[in-house]
């Protein structure tokens, strides 16, 4: 019964979304307040309906309703509750419902917080959201219905792929989708602006917080995916330049560029048509990512089912959404005239450089990811593009970007003083120089590139701190004055400082991978193995029983100078239902370095293959990513975005007829 209600709610949501995509558009064109008012109501209604459908699906999984095919194929009564819930999106159908759930969540949020938007703009934005929602609801109902029944119901289900039975599944997909789908708001604003033919500072002020929120979620989502791949043996570590990883990196790069170019629109009323294009590209890449991962053109743990019909449908959605919006852009963008002029050396110029480098980096990732697919599609040889390609294209483009991060914020708007900025950065030059000389001396023929990576990170970090110190007049004003300036600095400014520092921290983590130490040994209980100044003692292997697996559980003692640092328990888990073995690695971290341990096969004569790694500074990758996302959140809390009191007062005091200048 609940399943049928969920199904019904989903069908109803489709019709509400269709209404939401048509009536408000007509209303906005004819300036009919009643028809425009349909938009927020429909957005809230479709959110409620999709929530009901999603809840019904979760309920079916939690109660193990094996008359539902989706539950049979992906669940089992033995599965722990956490994986019964997260297993809802651990399959194709359920993950698409999660996608649409988050889409309607954003639609409802725009309707809820968009009270101060001009009614015409709000109606159009929500109409575009409704179109995206209609497309995906249609996709679910026609090709990926999660509510299909099967009579008679089997006694038990097939269970969830053991590699997905991990806490990572609870957070990685939802955050990734919050990011992917969050960019739909920027997209809808861009398309609405193109329909209206008007982009101004106010538009940028509305777009930027949504982009920021989506960007923060995507940053966290990617970082979590990277961490999951890191602690799972055989997934290639924290970044493998796998097409599936690239699919999430592309919208992130475009979103990062968008975040920066929207600042220029807001502050200087220029770069408008570029920003609109970026907003379209960012969400288009989210759709491309969904297509790549969901259509089965790539083989990975993410590709749940290969069905050409689904692939064609998503491809069709892709063509309509991207083709339509770019077509509209081609027609309307020439009308968007830029405002303020600026010299090449200026804050605007620096942000243009940021956009240029990020877009080029994006292009290399795009080429490297899609070229093999293209070649395969036209019947060419099968090739793969791995990390050597990206090391030679993407990484060199990041070097000038990192160099510029320190300089850009020191340049003034309109016309900057490059020489002056570089003079103010003398500390950063000194620090980076010391890191290079000291590092080269310390490693002597070791991983030289890592040293340059450290120097770049030091340059960025020092540069960011110099800018911040300048702003609060640190060491130059009385402490009370400095403190007052710290408090008065806009939150957006603090956010930028934190996010850029996070970038430096993450780069340090990336660069340190050159110093990793590895030890593979066949160990018997009682054996000791030295690694990176530690001694690893193998105590024994016992057996352990989980809810739906049996495990060999190793006990290892890590000591340094005779003192116990950690006791580690790597496991090998055997899932009888799927006849599959997975490794559970054991990691000891002190946030400066990770000690990573995996238990391999027994040789049948009492010895076990043991893999131990010492990975310095690896945790900094995720600390850096969290700092970046936190910086974004701090910036998001800036009072500028807090649905400005000024705007609301103006709306209340103004005429009853909505003002729509520019039309």
């Amino acid at each position, binding site marked *: 019964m609940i399943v049928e209600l969920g199904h019904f709610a989903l069908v109803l949501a489709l019709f509400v979304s269709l209404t939401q995509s048509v009536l408000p558009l007509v209303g906005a064109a004819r300036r009919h307040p009643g028809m425009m008012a349909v938009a927020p109501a429909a957005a809230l209604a479709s959110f409620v309906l999709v929530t009901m459908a999603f809840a019904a699906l979760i309920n079916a999984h939690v109660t193990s309703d094996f008359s539902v095919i989706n539950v049979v194929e992906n669940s089992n009564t033995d599965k722990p509750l956490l994986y019964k819930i997260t297993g809802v999106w651990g399959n194709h159908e359920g993950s698409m419902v999660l996608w649409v759930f988050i889409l309607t969540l954003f639609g409802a949020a725009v309707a809820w917080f968009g009270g101060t938007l001009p009614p015409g703009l709000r109606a159009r934005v929500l109409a575009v959201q409704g179109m995206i929602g209609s497309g995906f609801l249609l996709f679910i109902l026609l090709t990926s219905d999660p509510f299909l029944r099967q009579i008679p119901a089997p006694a038990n289900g097939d269970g969830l792929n053991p590699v997905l039975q991990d806490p990572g599944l609870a957070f990685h997909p939802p955050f990734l989708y919050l990011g992917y789908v969050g960019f739909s708001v920027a997209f809808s604003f861009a398309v609405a602006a193109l329909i209206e033919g008007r982009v101004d500072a106010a538009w940028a002020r509305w777009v930027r917080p949504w982009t920021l929120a989506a960007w923060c979620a995507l940053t966290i989502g990617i970082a979590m995916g990277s961490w999951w791949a890191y602690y799972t043996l055989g997934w290639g570590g924290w970044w493998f330049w796998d097409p599936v990883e690239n699919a999430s990196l592309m919208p992130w790069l475009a979103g990062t560029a968008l975040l920066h170019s929207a600042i220029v629109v807001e502050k200087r009323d220029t770069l408008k048509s570029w920003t609109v294009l970026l907003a379209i590209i960012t969400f288009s890449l989210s759709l491309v990512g969904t297509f790549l991962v969901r259509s089965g053109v790539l083989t990975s743990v993410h590709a749940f089912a290969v069905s050409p019909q689904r692939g064609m449908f998503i491809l069709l959605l892709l063509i309509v959404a991207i083709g339509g919006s770019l077509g509209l852009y081609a027609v309307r963008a020439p009308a968007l005239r830029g405002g303020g002029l600026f010299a090449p050396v200026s804050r605007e110029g620096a942000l243009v450089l940021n956009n240029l480098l990020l877009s080029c980096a994006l292009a290399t990732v795009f080429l490297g990811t899609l*070229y093999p697919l293209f070649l395969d599609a036209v019947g060419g040889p099968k090739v793969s593009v791995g990390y050597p390609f990206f090391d030679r294209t993407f990484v060199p483009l990041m070097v000038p970007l990192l160099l510029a991060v320190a300089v850009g914020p020191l340049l003034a708007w309109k016309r900057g003083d490059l020489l002056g900025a570089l003079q103010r950065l003398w500390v950063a030059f000194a620090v980076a120089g010391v890191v290079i000389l000291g590092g080269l001396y310390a490693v002597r023929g070791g991983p030289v590139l890592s040293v340059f990576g450290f120097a770049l990170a030091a340059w960025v970090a020092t540069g960011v701190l110099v800018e911040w110190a300048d702003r609060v007049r640190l060491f130059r004003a009385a402490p009370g004055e400095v403190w007052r300036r710290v408090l008065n600095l806009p939150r957006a400014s603090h956010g930028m400082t934190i996010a850029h520092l996070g970038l430096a921290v993450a780069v340090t983590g990336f660069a340190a991978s050159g110093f990793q130490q590895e030890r593979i040994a066949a160990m018997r209980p009682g054996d000791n193995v030295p690694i990176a100044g530690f001694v690893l003692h193998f105590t024994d292997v016992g057996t352990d029983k989980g809810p739906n697996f049996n495990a060999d559980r190793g006990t290892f003692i890590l000591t340094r100078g005779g003192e116990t640092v950690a006791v580690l328990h790597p496991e090998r888990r055997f899932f009888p239902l799927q006849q599959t073995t997975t490794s559970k690695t054991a990691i000891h971290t002190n946030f400066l370095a990770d000690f990573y341990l995996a238990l391999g096969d027994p040789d049948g004569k009492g010895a076990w293959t043991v893999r131990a790694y010492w990975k310095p500074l690896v945790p900094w990758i995720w600390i850096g990513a969290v700092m970046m996302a936190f910086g974004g959140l701090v910036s998001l809390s800036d009072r500028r975005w807090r649905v400005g009191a000024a705007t609301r007062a103006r709306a209340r005091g103004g005429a009853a007829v909505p003002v729509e200048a520019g039309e």
Partner: protein
Amino acid sequence: MTRKRRRLYLLLGGLTTLGVVSALVLSAFSNDLVFFYSPSELRAHHVPAGRYVRIGGLVEQGSVVHKDGGKAIAFRVTDGKRDLEVQYRGPLPDLFREGQGVVVEGALAGDGTFRAAEVLAKHDEKYMPREVADALKKTGHWQGEHPATVKQ
């Protein structure tokens, strides 16, 4: 600074960057594309020793030999027609098993054996890498969506 001048600067900057990027991409494409072969194709194409390639096929039944106390492994990859001796030292993916699909990345050594730098478990839920399925279809050894060799 007029609008035209600014546009010129932007254009010049953009074109320069584009040139640099194109050069980077082209040089990387000529060196770093990794071609995928089945063991038969590897022989047919006379791939020289030292060239970095990917090989896909099934791990031949009974061919896995652990060496050096489990630290190294040797096995044969087969597409049903030809097979290839692979030497590997490093972590194996969890789903590596005799009779199952596998993708190895590395280069041929002078002695005709393959030195794998990486053994990949790019499986979907059917436990069969797509490239391997295609390669097996080509040699006529594909046994349907659920080949008996896949399930234990």
